């Protein structure tokens, strides 16, 4: 998988994110929307990835985590709660995914676990509805995304 394709996955993940929670919607419709996006992510990863990049198994779900993170930027209320939950979900996916990969002899990538916890700083210590907070969070998430691909020990 090339770095360009990898960046493309980020783009695809981020595009539908604003619409996840923006409009009031019944729960099953929202689930269908998110599920559909996840299916598209999977299809996309499947087309682009090569087995030489063992983390590809995780990629659609990392994409889901990224979109959920981004979507919290557009939330009207309880942004703190859901932004932190989405970030934890990302850490969760990465940690257990890499833990299981490490049993198969794949290197454990540390970078996401250094960068993602930084996201809690803007979530908790800055005003949740200010533009700076959103910007700061977006930067951190983007950095986590890039570094979890590019940075290998």
């Amino acid at each position: 998988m090339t770095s360009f394709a990898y960046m493309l996955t980020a783009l695809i993940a981020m595009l539908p994110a604003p619409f996840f929670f923006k409009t009031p919607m019944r729960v099953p419709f929202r689930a269908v929307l998110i599920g559909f996006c996840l299916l598209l992510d999977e299809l996309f990863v499947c087309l682009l990835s090569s087995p030489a990049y063992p983390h590809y198994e995780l990629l659609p779900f990392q994409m889901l985590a990224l979109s959920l993170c981004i979507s919290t930027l557009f939330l009207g209320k309880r942004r703190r709660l859901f932004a932190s939950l989405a970030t934890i979900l990302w850490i969760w996916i990465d940690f257990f995914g890499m833990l299981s990969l490490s049993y198969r002899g794949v290197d454990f990538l540390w970078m996401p676990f250094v960068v993602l916890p930084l996201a809690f700083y803007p979530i908790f210590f800055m005003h949740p509805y200010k533009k700076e907070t959103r910007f700061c969070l977006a930067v951190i998430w983007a950095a986590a995304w890039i570094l979890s691909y590019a940075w290998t020990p």
Partner: protein
Amino acid sequence: MNILIFGIALLLPGLFAVDSALTLGPSSWDISQQRFWGTPIANFVFWIGLAHAGTFFSAILLVLGARWQHRVAFMAELSTLAALMVAASFPLIHLGIPSEFYQMIPMGNLRSVFVNPESPLVWDFVAILAYGIVSSLYILLHLFSLQKSSLERFRRPFAWILFPLVLWVHTIVSMDFAVTFVPNWQGAYFPLYFIFGALYSGVALVLVLTELSGRRVRAVEDLLISFSWAILAFWVWEALAKGIWHSEILVLGFLVPQLLWISKIREIQGARVLVAISGMVSLWWERLLLVQPESLDWTWVDIGLLSFGIGAFCVLFSLLRRGVQKAFPLALDENALEELRARPVQFARKPFWISICFGALAALLFAVYFVWNVPSITWMRLIPILFPIAALTAALSLSFFAARKVWSSKRIAWILGILLLWGVGVWGLVFRGSDVSYSEAFVTVSDQAGKLKSSAVDAREIWNARCAACHGKDGNLNRKFVHEYYPLPQTLSLSRIDSLGMDSLKRVILDGRNYMRPFRGRISDKEAAALVHYLKSMALQKEKGGLE
């Protein structure tokens, strides 16, 4: 009542299956030849998945602020307890030596041997134990909070502990598969996959249970549809990434639940129940195919174990519900709950954070203890056990704070004392362990066993063992012993050895002379020859020593 009778009807034959599974061992049920695992594990994963429903509805939805969660919370919590007990019994049945299960507990023991914390089964044990205790405490807290409103403020803190724990448990169950080298068990995405599968089946179970108790909660139906879409995404990914595709699972687990979009069907109670059951069946079948993808060759024990699971769940659930109904009549009364919900709820902030600190401390201490004793482990692989330990400690300390609100210190001291006594007792039993758990016997020692090997090197050892009692280790007589003999054994000088000749000396050893008894049969020819050489070398040495 009907559930109880239904449960007993399934449980009784199931118990026979459990009995024969325990006595005959794993060969009594069908086991995959490549994977050595079979139906008990599939049942375990299925039931532990169902056990997530309670926590999902009463803890996760509580902290996420779903307005309708109290309507199904008790039902779901009770089903969690029942399903958890059923789930926990299956790994025990699965074991080759069930009575030795405690060897998985990650604590040192008398023999100072430690478990292997890299193994997901150890994580499993700890996580399920912690989940069982914490969710029981949670349901107790919930029940008591109906009577003592001062407890209400502890519910949310507790829910915050339980929320990650329940996800952790199923994550770890998924790791049992994900860390292996079995091709169809591999998958870095398994944690989410299993969690969504568990929540899906849990929601389906709660739907069935609420319908059976004559109520209807539309939000649960909505959730069922939602989770069917989530699980679809994982099934598609299984197909794309690993080429695993089972159309029957897709039909039962995804297509059938879509019927609920059609409002005509959705209004029929039977249809809703059937849809939920279809979802559960598809997930059970999926777990079975995961554990055992080869063609099934079931014995009656496999079916009996399935029946045991369902039966035991129904019996436990209905008994628990009756108990709750008797002891806490408010709990299942919807109107009363509606009123209770109107109370303003606070969050017990200070006890919560203190408990969290206790939990973190306990996890840290455990990690230090373990790394100290087993320095060779990859410490990162210890993390999966640390969180359940932290959560368990935090929940216990939070319960302590909650108990102080309602009970007198004397009563708490009593309870703590009894619990401590019990805990120390159990700890001691586990610490000691059973005696040699080994089928075959101890070594029998007779004169036949373990003869000395013969070689020139150990002729000295043979001499020391066989001859030195009389002839002395250095070849001089052992006077303390032989003073009773007459005539005294001859001292062997170099000249005498040479005049006698090696062969005749060897004959003396083998056939005896005067009071010296024959050693034939106790010493081989080769050994006798080696002894004669040794004799000569000793005499040589003595001669040299004498000259010097």
